């Protein structure tokens, strides 16, 4: 009851039952993959292959362009069929490298594990960069950037985000249950790269089994510097600044980064990817995705190659019960609705939801009744209803004094609104207005 937490927040229906008890399954490798060269903020990668080239799994196909950018690797063996524009999560028409299966899979054998603790941190970081690892939680910021803070910044705590506060999603939970040893090793590698001693893992209280698994393993190996307090189950517990506050009571300044309060936050899935990259040299070409929602026939936690289209995933997961009202990439609270099933999954896709009209929100909204629930729910202490009211009457210039730029777009205000107003949407409009003016 007194688990650490933050101020505000909401309790959306969890809907994790659909996939909670399902262990990780490998989805069949698709015939064709469309790998976007831009999978997150930063610069798109530059293709290093030509149409007609043959590639192996894990072969570099696009190179990072600059610091905030990451490498991209082939997710299936085959022939580069085209490098053209098409729908991606980031844009309706982004550059995608199309790979068609060709050749055999026999070469996919696990190499021997290397002893990473003999390597200097610099080499470890380089392996992370080479593997093209980006945050697996959703925002997918390139991991090597987060792991190389400027030399004048002192980091003293590494925070591992396993809160998984989004409804439906169970990938982190499933991953912990299966690969807790690898995750802890990944955490130790990350800790070495950053040169910090203390680690805190944040797990919400609704994932008791995962919590116990890690706790017992840490006890067994006698690791004292990795702590795992159980967090209150509340959305958005996994939002970076809220998580830092819940675990350390440090407040990241408005507009600032976690490193300003001496912390770095990594998703637990990212730690697993780091372990794979450092120990086995495996680049990031596949990831875990929770495929869920009431309309998919076989919901579950699947290991899927990056670049697999939604259409292929639907086919492999037993098809749809009926036409969904919405298809959402990510979680229902801050995921992204997509318009077509031709979109491929990317490094940051943690969930794929097929929602019916009843499950997903849509439709008409009423007047604001000033109930103040958005104010109570806002983890940042904004007055969301005031921003929304000004946007509604086309006065975006009046929203600046309510600081819409501090909004983290968690969607708690829209969720809680009894008048069903798209409050966070209005706030987004205000943000775009203010940004465009600057």
């Amino acid at each position, binding site marked *: 009851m007194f688990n650490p937490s933050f101020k505000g927040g*909401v309790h*959306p*229906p969890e809907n994790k039952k659909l996939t909670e008890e399902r262990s990780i399954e490998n989805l069949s490798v698709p015939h064709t993959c469309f790998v976007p060269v831009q999978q997150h903020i930063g610069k798109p990668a530059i293709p290093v292959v030509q149409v007609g080239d043959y590639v192996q799994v894990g072969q570099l196909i696009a190179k990072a362009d600059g610091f905030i950018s990451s490498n991209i690797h082939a997710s299936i063996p085959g022939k580069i069929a085209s490098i053209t524009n098409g729908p991606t999560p980031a844009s309706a028409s982004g550059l995608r490298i199309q790979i068609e299966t060709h050749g055999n899979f026999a070469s996919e054998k696990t190499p021997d594990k290397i002893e990473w603790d003999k390597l200097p941190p610099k080499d470890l970081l380089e392996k992370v960069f080479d593997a093209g690892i980006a945050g697996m939680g959703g925002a997918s910021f390139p991991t090597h950037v987060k792991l190389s803070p400027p030399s004048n910044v002192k980091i003293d705590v590494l925070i591992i985000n396993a809160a998984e506060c989004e*409804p439906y999603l169970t990938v982190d939970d499933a991953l912990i249950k299966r690969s807790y040893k690898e995750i802890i090793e990944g955490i130790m590698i990350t800790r070495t790269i950053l040169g910090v001693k203390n680690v805190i893992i944040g797990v919400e209280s609704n994932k008791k089994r995962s919590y116990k698994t890690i706790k017992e393993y840490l006890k067994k190996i006698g690791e004292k510097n990795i702590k795992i307090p159980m967090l209150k189950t509340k959305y958005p517990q996994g939002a970076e*600044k809220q998580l830092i*506050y819940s675990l350390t009571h440090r*407040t990241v*300044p*408005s507009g600032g980064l976690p490193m300003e309060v001496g912390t770095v936050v990594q998703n637990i899935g990212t730690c697993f990817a780091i372990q794979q990259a450092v120990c086995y040299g495996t680049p990031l070409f596949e990831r875990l995705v929770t495929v869920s929602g009431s309309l998919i026939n076989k919901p579950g936690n699947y290991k899927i190659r990056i670049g697999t289209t939604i*259409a292929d995933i639907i086919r492999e997961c037993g098809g749809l019960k009926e*036409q*969904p*009202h*919405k*298809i*959402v990439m*990510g979680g*229902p*609270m*801050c*995921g*992204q*609705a*997509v*318009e*077509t*099933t031709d979109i491929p999954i990317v490094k940051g896709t943690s969930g794929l939801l097929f*929602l019916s009209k009843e*499950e*997903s*929100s*849509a439709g008409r909204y*009423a*007047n*604001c*009744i*000033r*109930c*103040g629930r958005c*104010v*109570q729910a806002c*983890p*940042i*202490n*904004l*007055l969301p*209803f005031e921003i929304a009211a000004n946007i509604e009457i086309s006065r975006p210039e009046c929203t600046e004094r309510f*600081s819409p730029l*501090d909004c983290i777009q968690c*969607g708690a205000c*829209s*969720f809680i*609104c*009894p*008048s*069903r107003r*798209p409050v*966070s*949407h209005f706030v*987004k409009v205000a943000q775009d207005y203010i940004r465009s003016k600057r």
Partner: protein
Amino acid sequence: MDQQIYTLSLAPHTKNRQNLPVVMWLVVLSLLPSTVFAVYTFGMHVLLVILTAIFSACAAEYLFRLLLKRELTIFNGSAAITGLLLAMNLPPMVPLWIPAVGSVFGIIIAKELFGGLGHNIFNPALVGRAFLMASWPALMTTKWITFPNGTMFSSSFNAYSVLPQPALDALTGATPLAALKNVPALANSFNVHSQYNIYQTLFDISNFKALAIGNIGGCIGETSALLLLTGALLLLFTRIINWRIPFSYIATFALLIFAYYKLTGFFMPYHALVYHLLSGGLILGAFFMATDMVTSPVTGKGMLVFGAGCGLLTFAIRIWGGYPEGVSYSILLMNAAVPLIDKYCVPKIFGKRKQA
């Protein structure tokens, strides 16, 4: 290639089930115990008063919006709540045109003319009541029910009392708060040599029991403290109302009342405190009317300030004012202060540095 285009929208893609109609009908549900009890104790006329108030409120809103070609909103239940709350604030035996006029005035003048639900400054039910109070004061202050056997509280009441029968009748003819306010006047006119006996009669244990259960004179919906609190618990539990307003309202009021009686050297300060808390419209007002979402502050701090203001004004009116009861006027006055309160109670933004 899949040609189907799916619905696009910004996140979130899920919504709380508790939407506006659900909120409004839960409020109605929470008032139901007190309403049923009122019909049971005061008789069928009360049912007619309640139905008239609800019907006129809904009809007024429906016709007005129809006339102005606005979206029809009567099914969200807010007009029904206005009617019900107004009826609960009327004496039981008022003629039926009183609730009708009050509802229509409240809905049209206090709500629809401001732009409908969400834009009104004052609580429509209370505006309706204030209008009736100002226009037909006699009807609004005399139509009480006197309980049988010449007692207003319980049948054994007379046995404890040393008061002459006419004094008792004068006490029992009105509401508990009016009785309390009348004590000095009564002492004069009936030549009871000290007010002591009258107070002791009022603060009899059987009276407190009656105040809690509700078989006592008063407005339709305000008499039963226990049933009102039951409904309030439902609203608190479903998070429709926030604890801050009722808490700071009642706490401020209790503190001031107690301090007043203690400082003036009154001989039964604890009794007076409990008597004040249980009687009149305090519980109804604090939990069901001051908490009206539209007309109360939105921030946590603002809610505390608002409640404290209501408590202070209620105390002042009850002790020094001309009326025995001041809940509805206090809330209306504080409604007017809400924009000001909200302006000065903006919460500190997470992580925001102090601006120089």
